[in-house]
């Protein structure tokens, strides 16, 4: 198992209880987490999106993802980057 995969699996577990309030499923299953990579030693960068650009839950979701990743001890510092490239679509959901 590569370190990238290890991070990915641990991220999925850590974020399993961050629920998108509208859809009622966790952010990983909905496909909101685009990537999670260690960009330096103990520095994790998570790229994520939201289902709707401008959604009022955006800030809360970003904070929750950062908080969960940090509290699980995945890295010393965690940055969350919000992106809409590509924009989210329902096809990105895990069935």
């Amino acid at each position, binding site marked *: 198992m590569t370190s990238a995969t290890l991070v990915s699996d641990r991220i999925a577990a850590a974020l399993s*209880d*961050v*629920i998108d*309030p*509208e*859809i*009622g499923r966790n952010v990983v299953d909905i496909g909101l987490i685009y990537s999670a990579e260690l960009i330096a030693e103990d520095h994790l960068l998570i790229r994520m999106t*939201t*289902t*709707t*650009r*401008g*959604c*009022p*839950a*955006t*800030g*809360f*979701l*970003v*904070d*929750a*993802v*950062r*908080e*969960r990743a940090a509290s699980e001890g995945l890295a010393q510092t965690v940055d969350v980057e*919000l992106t809409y490239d590509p924009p989210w*679509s*329902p*096809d990105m*959901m895990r069935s």
Partner: protein
Amino acid sequence: MPGAPISRWTMSYFAVSLVCLLSGLAAMGSGFGFPSGDVGAPDTLVVVHLLAIGWLGLLFCGALLQFVPVLAAARPRFASVAAPALVMLVFGLSALLAGFLSLGGRAGFDLAIMPVGAALLVSAFIALAVSYAATILSRPEIDLSGKLVLVGLVSLLVTIALGATFTGVLSGMLSTEWSAELLLRGLPVHAFSGVAGWMSITAVGVSYRLFSMFMLAPESGFSTRRLIAGLVAALAMLWVSPFAALAYPGADVAVEWIAVALFAGALFVYLSDVFRMVRSRRRKTLELNTLAGVGSLVYLLAAVVMVAMHQLFPDTLAFGPAAIYALAMGWLSGLGLAQLYKIVPFVTWLEAYGPVMGRAAVPRVQDLVRESRGRSWFILYHAGVLLGVAGLLCGAELAFHLAAWVEFAAVAGLAVELFHARRLGYAPADIRLPKGAVRPHLLFANQI
């Protein structure tokens, strides 16, 4: 913080709008105004404006305060107008209704109170319209929903300009040789600009985004250009029809037919898009708000058919009033109540649980409502609307009055459900208020 902020005063708008709806339904149920009175009688004007401005106007304005920044993905512009506009709308509507009651001899106010009320209403609506338009136009690209809301706002301006002019005529302050002609020709334009233009087109615009979000359907492949072109052309026909009559007597009927045909064509395009969303949705089991919202579209279709029947057979059955009733109480109110049932718990959830998400276990949005109860109230409401339409068509006043009380009971029931949602009453007790969560105020949002 990224994303649209929570609108501080949306809940206040919603609360006042529900009070107006219940008041209007109680008045209708008690035989106040049409059909017991004449369609243009002062009592009818009271009920119509209580529902059109008090219920639907405030509902739409409150919803747009929250929704326009989401739609534009931009911070709200001139957001500080929301609270003073609400105060002006309440005082303006009260003054207008007092004027109508005085016009009918039920109160003794100077009729000048009507234009004063209209001035307050016009100022408030313009302030809000500028705020919404500035927010939408702040983005370089405007999507279908944004364009439709802009068209709706233009219709709002036409509606209130005509309405304000009418208050001048009715109060006697504006007296010219063409006053009677203005009322006769302008009244249908005022009514249809409000119901079909401002409110229906805005509702269609908002529904594109909401249906897509709630059904998890792709936001692409819509017939944007055809829909916008059809609606703008239909509105233009509606607005030139009185002038056509002045230039060529009788030409207004042909222009009205063109307007009806264009509205029907636009409706077909819209319903095709909604049908495509329903078919391609990822959320197979639809929530109550989506089901009730999509269900309200049936009235839109029925209203267009009844308007056409009214044009064809103006003296057979009350197709005209029934169409307006189906649009106001079935389509617009049905969709409005359905979306209230979603927006209130969603905003409540954000206020209460957004700040602690990821730090503690929290309920889902769906846990803040009890759909089994809500479903019963929606079924009762639509039974009332169908009874009301049938009562109007058949000239059965008692059925019409009974329908209003049935709707009153259903709306009161839904209001209680929204109260429970706002107070977190249905949230599981063990996670109702986790550490750090704040119970929202009933009538306005916390500043987060």
